[in-house]
Structures are given as structure tokens and as C-alpha cells.
């Protein structure tokens, strides 16, 4: 049975068909990913952006400030507890 499946997979027509299916699945994957991410971007990111704009909250500092003496800020102190480093954040 295994030999038969192996022979089948090595068959030119079958492998051409499988390649074609893979291409189609990649294409479909791309379309679905794009559509889903588009929805997430517009409703997830977009709505959050809107609320942030109303509340005047910024996520990044985009402009210099002449009033500031320095732009240095405190670095997050990392201890030597190994358990901190198992986390990806």
C-alpha cells in the first residue's frame, strides 16, 4: 500500500496536480489573510486610533520638543532572576 502511494506521488500527472493545488491554497491563504487583516486593521486598529485621538493619547512621540532638556528616559531595569527571561516580554 505504501509502495502504491509512493508510486502515485511520483507520478508526473499526480505531482503536477498536487503542485497546482498547493498554488491555489497559497493564493486562497493570501486572500483570506489579507481580508481578515484588513478587517482587523479597520475595526481593531482604526477604532482604537479613533478613541486615542479623542482622548489625545499618543503611542509614539513623533516630533521634537524645544522645551525639553533631554530625551533620555530611564531604561527598564532588568534583574538577574532567571524566571524573568523565560517571558517573551
Amino acid at each position, binding site marked *: 500500500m505504501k509502495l502504491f502511494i509512493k508510486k502515485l506521488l511520483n507520478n508526473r500527472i499526480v505531482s503536477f496536480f498536487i503542485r497546482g493545488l498547493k498554488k491555489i491554497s497559497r493564493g486562497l491563504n493570501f486572500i483570506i489573510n489579507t481580508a481578515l487583516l484588513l478587517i482587523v*486593521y479597520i475595526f481593531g486598529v482604526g477604532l482604537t486610533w479613533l478613541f486615542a485621538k479623542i482622548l489625545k493619547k499618543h503611542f509614539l512621540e513623533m*516630533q521634537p520638543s524645544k522645551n525639553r532638556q533631554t530625551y533620555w528616559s530611564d531604561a527598564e531595569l532588568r534583574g538577574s532572576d532567571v524566571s524573568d527571561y523565560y517571558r517573551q516580554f
Partner: protein
Amino acid sequence: MYILGLSCFYHDSSAALLRDGKIVAAAEEERFTRKKHDSSFPLSAINYCLSSQGITINDIAYIGFYEKPFLKFERLLSQYLETFPKGLWSFVSTLPIWFSQKLRLIKIVRKKLKYKGSVLFVPHHLAHAASAFLISPFQKAAILTIDGVGEWSTTTYGIGEENEIKLLKHLAFPHSLGLLYSAITAYLGFRVNNCEYKVMGLSAYGESDKDKNQYYKKLKNTIDIKADGSFCLDMDYFSYCFAQKMPSKKLCQLLGLPIRKASEELTQSHKDIAAALQTITEEVIMKIINHLHKEVACENLVLAGGVALNSVCNGKILKNAPFKNIWIQPNASDGGTSIGAISYIYNSLLGNARNYQMEDAFLGPSFSNEEIKTFLDKEKISYQFLGDSELVEIGAKLIFENKIIGWFQGRMEWGPRALGNRSILANPLNPEMKDILNSRIKHRESFRPFAPAVCEESVSTYFECDSPLPEAARYMLLVYPIKEAWRSDLPAVTHFDGTGRLQAVNKDRNPLFYRLIEEFKALSGFSVILNTSFNTNNEPIVCTPSEAWNCAKRAGLNYLAIGNFLIKLDEK
């Protein structure tokens, strides 16, 4: 105890292996996959590290990763939230790879390596800091890390003492010297994360006087630099927060030129822009270093991060800053963080005393004469087998006769520079050699300079260098002016502005290469050889004998010295 370090998924993947505190193997993935700046999971580099010690993945106590992916993802989301709706295309194209790869490192490690042990995540700039301090010769040092961006930090400074590192202050994304440099690199038509060093080389052709360089004043509009060296970019001029393209339309309007296409000729304006960028970069770094000295009372300084590869700036630090000693890891950019991660885990987290100091950058694979002979015989390549003394004697003679030879010896270098183990060597006295190498051998831009390899004791003869000479000079990390008296004698390695990015060759660290240069001196009177990397344009440096042979043929080298075998390729 073995600890394996990994860096991957952004650019320059690498793996490094530590055994009981000592770095025993390290290599970048690109050298094995032959894909320049390969960012994929470094399976080949890992396999090399393990096989070099005759161990398996089960012998690894910890795997250290060079950043905290979720923190980086948080920063990415912040970018999209701040720049909505401009980031739509970037969001849609970037996020799939985060979900399939970058946020699944543990799963990927378990699947690809069948590893069941602990995986630790070291913050990016901490990995940079560790990669410089913990393997440096200093027990106490001020630490400065500057790169594009890690998770949030782009620049950090702190202090290292014994086996502890404390990062004190940082600058956060999007304000990044590395990204400023990359944005202008892109503006000048070069590839980002690939060609920043070309812009550094190009800057020598531009106007270095800031009062005369109109682009200096213009570029200063994009960055607010405080007296303590901290800075803030005006993000109206840069679009990297939300787009793949880095310079914005406003930057093009400011500089008065469109983004240069790679095929377009470089004009004096482009060179002046490169010079202005280099001047501003040096200004910022010097201010930061001077501020750092006030904050951390110490005579030693270690540098890391991609910007620490700016050897033009590095060569000016000790002259212009109160520090007395400087050390820079040869693979200062992201590729070197795999070493940082494992050093940090072993020394700082596990509390082990430091017992290793990096003394050379030869951490990659080597090939015995038997292995080389097997390859040469299999390919039916004619060769001469020579003893070491004969090899250096004949090699020096060939270089003196203006032959270009591929030099493949010992363990492969760690980091972007070829240091005499995977090098193409040529005569620095020949005024035509630079053009020959650029146009016919390496197929690269004509403005690109070549580096001199000099016996360590002779450096001060030829260069206006720091005294004592920093160890960083061994790794081609410092550019110094060549003394006026020698410039006309060394035309192939003297850059347009009279400088050279020297490699100081140490007698004990690379004895064969040292002897070669000494033999050349006996013939020519100069203990200087032109040393460039053994590759052609857009190709990683060669790793194996087969790659060396193929590259030598492709590049049109005259001779190939591979191990103790000398192969003649072409009489021209």
C-alpha cells in the same frame, strides 16, 4: 555546560555556542545558505556549532534568544496605532510573518531542533551590551549600544562591572540613529541593512566642512540634538513607522532631490549628503559619549549595535572623548547578539565569574589539509602542496608581482570583515589595483575603498592612530588617517580622504597571515597588504573549499592558496 545563542527573523541570523563560559563556535547563517543577510532560522549555523564540539542538542542546557518578541510586537502595534490609516499595506503584509514565525519561536525551536530544554529571551539591547562588555578585556566599563531598533530602545547606555550589566538610560523608537542612517542610505539608492557601510565610504568624497556643506544644515532640520547627545527625529521626514519606504516626500523636498535609483550615477550632491549624514552621526555619538563619561566615571568604553560598525566614527572616539580605552565586538550588529545572549545568561543570570576574553574573531568552521585534498582530487584540480614557510614566501612574491590571490586558511571569521582567513589579497602599492579589484574582481562601485592589513607593530609607522592601539583595530573597526608621507606609496588602500580602515595583524593571533605580510615587507619594504573579503558582490564571504574554488574562478583570481595548497588559475 553548553549554552546555545540564536539571533534570527530580522536580518543576519546567527548561532553561537558557549562551553563553560568560553565562546567555542559562532557563525552567521548566510555563510551556509549563501543567501546574503539571511534572516531565517539558523539551522545550518546551529548544526555547525554543535558538530564543532561533537555534541547534540540534548547537551544544551539553555538556548538564549536575542530579543523579547512580544515586546517588539507591542512596539509594532504602537506604530500602526499612531499612524493609522497610513500603515494599512505594511500591516497587511507584515503581520502574517509575525503570527507564523516571529511570535512562535519556542514552537519552532522545539520542532526544528527537537529541543526540550529552557529557552530564555534576553532583551535586544542587553544582548548587544553583553556581546561587547562580557567578552571584553575590561572588568569595568561604560557601555553604549546604538542600532536601528530592538524592542523599543534604539540607543542605550549603562555600566558593566565584573559580570553585571546595568542599563541606565535609553532612547526609544522611532528616534534612532541607525534608522536615520538607513533612511539616508535608502534615499541615496542603496539597500537598507546591507549598504550603510557604502554610504560611510561615499562620505569621504563629500564636503566635510559643515559650513560649506548645504546638506548639513538641511539634514539638521530633521533632528533635534540636545547637549547631552539625546536626540529626537522629526518624523515628518521619515516614513519607516508605517511604510517599507524610509524617506518621506518631505525629506525629498528638503534635500531638493528625488530618491536616487540604484542605476543612476552618483553626483556630488549625493556625496555631500552622505558626508552631511556622517558628520551628524559623529556629532551625536561624540555628544553621547561625552555625556556618558560624566554619568559613568570610568576610563573604559565598550560599543555595540549596528552603528558601532561605523569605523570612521570609531577612529575618532578616543581623540575626542575622555575615555582612555575602547573595545568593540567584531560582529557588533544583530548577528553578534547571539554571543551576547549566551554570555549574559552564563555570567549575569547564572552568576558565573567571567573566564573568557575574545582575542580573535576566528570562530567559524575550518578544514584540514586532508579535507581540502579530498575536494581538490575529486574535482581534479592541479595544485602544489607547500609547507607554511614556502607558502608565505611564494604568496608574498605573487602579491608583489601584482597577482591577486584568494587566501583560505584556518577558521572562518565571525563578523562582516575578512581578517586574513577568508580573504582576497593584493598589492597595495599598485595604483591600478583598486580599480582592477572593484571593476573586474568584486564587481562593485568604483568609489569603494580597500582595507590595509598591517603588522600590529608597524601600524603607528603608517597611520595617525591612537596610542596604545585599541584591540578593535584587529577587527577592522577603526579608520585612521594614513600619514601623508605614505599615501602615495599605498594608493590601493588609501581612501579618497587619505584614510584607511586598517586591520592590525597580531603575530600570535594569526601567525601565518602575519608572516605573509612580513615576507611582503622583505620584498617591497612595506608591511602592508591589501585585504578584502573573499566573495564577489552581493554574495556572503566564502565558507568551504568548494565555495572558495568557485568564487576564485568566477572572480578571475590569479591564484588560490587554500590550506597548504597553492592553485594557479590564470596568468593574466
